């Protein structure tokens, strides 16, 4: 299972990457593996507000629907529209294929997220 060192992680299997002052959010390799074949994703819209800990997207695998939780609070500035046509991209490369890009409201929220090492230890349990 891949867990890139430069990302921050949540207990609900999302990751956050900071790039040029924006936060990109996606789901982890562990999450996509547990879900199985992803067949649909319900995305938020640009300028939607994300509230830390609240669901902002839904991922549908063959088996079931799963919520994606916001790791941090902020405003959506872009959604990865490629996922609408090709949701399986999340299975193929969950770290390259982010779900939303947001404007962070409070950078200090990042400190509460897990490091790669902490996340790996949690997922192993």
């Amino acid at each position, binding site marked *: 299972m891949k867990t890139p060192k430069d990302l921050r992680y949540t207990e609900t299997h999302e990751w956050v990457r900071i790039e040029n002052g924006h936060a990109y959010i996606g789901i982890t390799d562990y999450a996509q593996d547990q879900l*199985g*074949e992803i*067949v*649909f994703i*319900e995305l938020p819209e640009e300028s939607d507000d994300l509230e830390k800990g609240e*669901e902002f997207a*839904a991922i*549908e695998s*063959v*088996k*079931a*629907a799963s919520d994606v939780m916001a790791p941090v609070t902020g405003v959506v500035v872009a959604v990865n529209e490629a996922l609408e046509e090709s949701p399986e991209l999340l299975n193929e490369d969950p770290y390259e294929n982010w779900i939303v890009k947001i404007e962070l409201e409070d950078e200090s929220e990042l400190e509460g997220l897990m490091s790669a090492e902490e996340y790996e230890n949690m997922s192993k349990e």
Partner: protein
Amino acid sequence: MKKTALYEEHIRLGARMVEYAGYEMPLQYSSIKEEHHAVRNHAGVFDVSHMGEIHVLGSEATDLIDHIFTNRVRAMTAQEIQYGFLTNEKGGVVDDLLVYKVNDEFYLLVVNAANKDKDFAWIQKKNTFDATVIDKSDSYAEIALQGPQAEEILQRYTETDLAAIRFFTFAEFDIAGKSFLVSRTGYTGEDGFEIYGEGDDVKMLFARLLEENEGLLPTGLGCRDTLRFEAGLPLYGHEIDTDITPLEAGYGFAVDVRKAGFIGQDVLKRQKEEGLERKVVGLELLDKGILREGYDILHEGETIGRTLSGYLSPTIEKPLATAILPVEHAKKGTIVTVKVRKRMLQARVRNKTFYRRKKS
């Protein structure tokens, strides 16, 4: 958690295991979709050893079953199987099951794993007859070989002419040198067999079938549900339940309201005579998305029904669901609104048997 006789085979095959009805069962081996298509196009083999097996024995065995079971058990001859329901006093479903008639004084009841203890207690409670009810679940292992190539594959292992075993009949004979009870039944909408035997024998057969037959895949509970869903077969707790009668669910063919007295018959007879107030239908989602169980169905702001099962159908490649609706909204072609999380989506009512195999 309980393990079936095939547990080590599942681990060896790299299955993803899940808990189901107290058993550790394979959800999938490769992928649900791949396994689903294997059953539709070639063949798949399922471990269904978790199913419950109950023996009903004695001079009044037929009378007991006739009293608790909705179908025409008195019309059965030996080696026949009937599908039907145990119903409660309100006509709701205690369980759906298969009844295998061995002879007038010996029946095998095959019930849902999750309901087995409840069913056994129910049957015992209703047993005011000269009959003995025994839970034999731990003595049986069971696999289901399903798909258009099922007969061809199984025939390689037995002298018995499988073509002679018609749909919903069974026989006992040797396969690969061991003795099994084999029925032409299944839960996938395809041709196939359900094979009962001793744990070690079933394990041997499962392993040999997979090793020696190209195109045959081990198939898990994941695709078992997508397959039965497409074929319009009910899953207890979804399309049928204590508060959904077999008639509302659309399985009237397995309910004989005219036979002499079974539990809940008066309610079902009245439903049949006066007409249903609600029924289980199929839905096809017209907007983008996927329907799952438990979504509200709305009409002019009021909740009028709910979805019962739902998938992006692997065979039909459309988002489909079963739902329970008042009859005035249940006509084919009716457009209804389904609340999916925060979105209101449009769906069209259609027949709930989404898939029918082409009979050869």
